């Protein structure tokens, strides 16, 4: 029976970039355990011979031509920005390195 610990929830919240406080962590862990228990019922239902379905309807090779289409204006692009400067999105200092 899968049981999800408070620490595991904290780790997952970290991966998902959500800052859960102690109360939320205490609250969520048991709820998630219950949900996990019910969904774990599907383990072993489908054998190795059953292929996975990622799309309900089988389609392949949907491509577009390499042609330029109209874009947004910079004003439109930045319209929702919480902060902007020099026509760019201003974001707080980034920890971690260049990708």
């Amino acid at each position, binding site marked *: 029976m899968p049981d999800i610990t408070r620490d595991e929830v904290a780790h*997952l919240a970290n991966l*998902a970039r959500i800052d859960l406080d102690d109360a939320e962590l205490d609250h969520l862990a048991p709820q998630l355990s219950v949900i996990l228990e019910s*969904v774990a019922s599907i383990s072993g239902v489908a054998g190795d011979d*059953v292929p996975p379905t990622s799309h309900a*309807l089988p389609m392949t090779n949907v491509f577009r031509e390499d042609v330029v289409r109209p874009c947004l204006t910079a004003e439109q692009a930045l319209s929702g920005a919480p902060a902007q400067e020099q026509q760019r999105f201003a974001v707080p200092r980034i920890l971690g390195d260049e990708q």
Partner: protein
Amino acid sequence: MLAAGETTSVELTRAHLDRIAEVDGAVHAFLHVDAEGALAQAAAADERRAAGTPASVLDGIPIAVKDVLATQGLPTTCGSKILEGWVPPYDATVVARLKQAGLPILGKTNMDEFAMGSSTEHSAYGPTHNPWDLDRIPGGSGGGSAAAVAAFEAPLAIGTDTGGSIRQPGAVTGTVGVKPTYGGVSRYGLVALANSLDQAGPVTRTVLDSALLHEVIGGHDPLDSTSIDQPLPSLVEAARQGATGDLTGVRIGVVKELGGEGYQAGVLSRFQESVDLMVKAGAEVVEVSCPSFVHALATYYLILPAEASSNLAKFDAMRYGLRVLPEGIENPSAEEVMRASRDAGFGDEVKRRIILGTYALSSGYYDAYYGQAQKVRTLISRDFAAAFEKADVLVSPTAPTTAFKLGEKLDDPIAMYLNDLATIPANLAGVPGISVPSGLADEDGLPAGVQILAPALADDRLYRVGAALEAALLQQWGGRLLDRAPDLDKLDRRSGVAR
């Protein structure tokens, strides 16, 4: 009426805006009403009609749109605080098609946050109330659209359905709701919940209205790689044909696993009556079994959160949406701002599903959870395929119960998830489904619905069988079901204009 010149679009639109002002304080179906825009669009529609060049059959008929679809210039919140005030710079394809067809957009309707829910109680802006009983839920996640139509605030609405979010509200509000074949209606501009399950569709008072609306919004969209590149079948024709009441030669499959235990007695009675009526109309009933359906809920609650957790990562306060600075940190980093904003902006149900989804996809767990769920999905599709060999359509009650009271299931996520038992399988297999009102349950006098499912690409069967059933029920009732809903003017508890 519009075609006959008996009224104008402006009058029609104004009448609905008045109705909204009158009752939406109590119902709270709308998150945003665009009176000015709607009236301007209505005026343009009137001009077109006067010139003899209507844009479509539905030109000038006002419509409400679920707040999960991007509408250029109108706020789009998805029922979440994280998108409070966000105004998209573009239209969803569905919205663009509505505009092209001339339908004035009255406003955006309430929903469970990011379409996660079955009661619209998870909206960050307060719940919507069922027009049949304001203390009860209108279903979810598209409770706003269904309630608006049921309360006569809008003649038509657009909803979206990932696990039943059009059909289930339809059932508990006495309206018609359709989930098209997956890929039948463009998802471009539909803020994704579970990309492999989501579909936009009509929410209306009659089956014919749904067919008309479906034909306006459906069809291939080059901006959506998963949209079907084939012409729609003739849905309006199928609805008209069905309305003659003849179902001779149609095989109706009753799904064993979608009924029985867990289903309210009154819901089952109305369902049985509907099946009997279909037989009277000439249909043949067969019992079919889809054994994998018992795993549908678990499969759904693994696939959906997994896809959603990835879809919702974009809400990080960097480009749009709520930005909250963490308390007590001087000069916070981007990471810290992301975390604080997401914590403040997302509600509990959304957080639950994001965590669950992150878990299901994480290394070491992928095969057992998400991977396994995708396999069980194949089994479910196979069950449908086998069932459709024996039957032309499958039927079941749309939802296990009638509308429950607000707050009743909020603390029990699993109890909430069970509302989608009957509707989920169709999303997993991509097949289309419709919910048609089947009457009022004896115990509580609240609406119930019948779900009709058809094979992928055979949406026309929904309309034929749905229209036939509707005609038979109308005759039996001697009038519209919705006319039996309580008068909202008298029950108005929270007066005031809706936002």
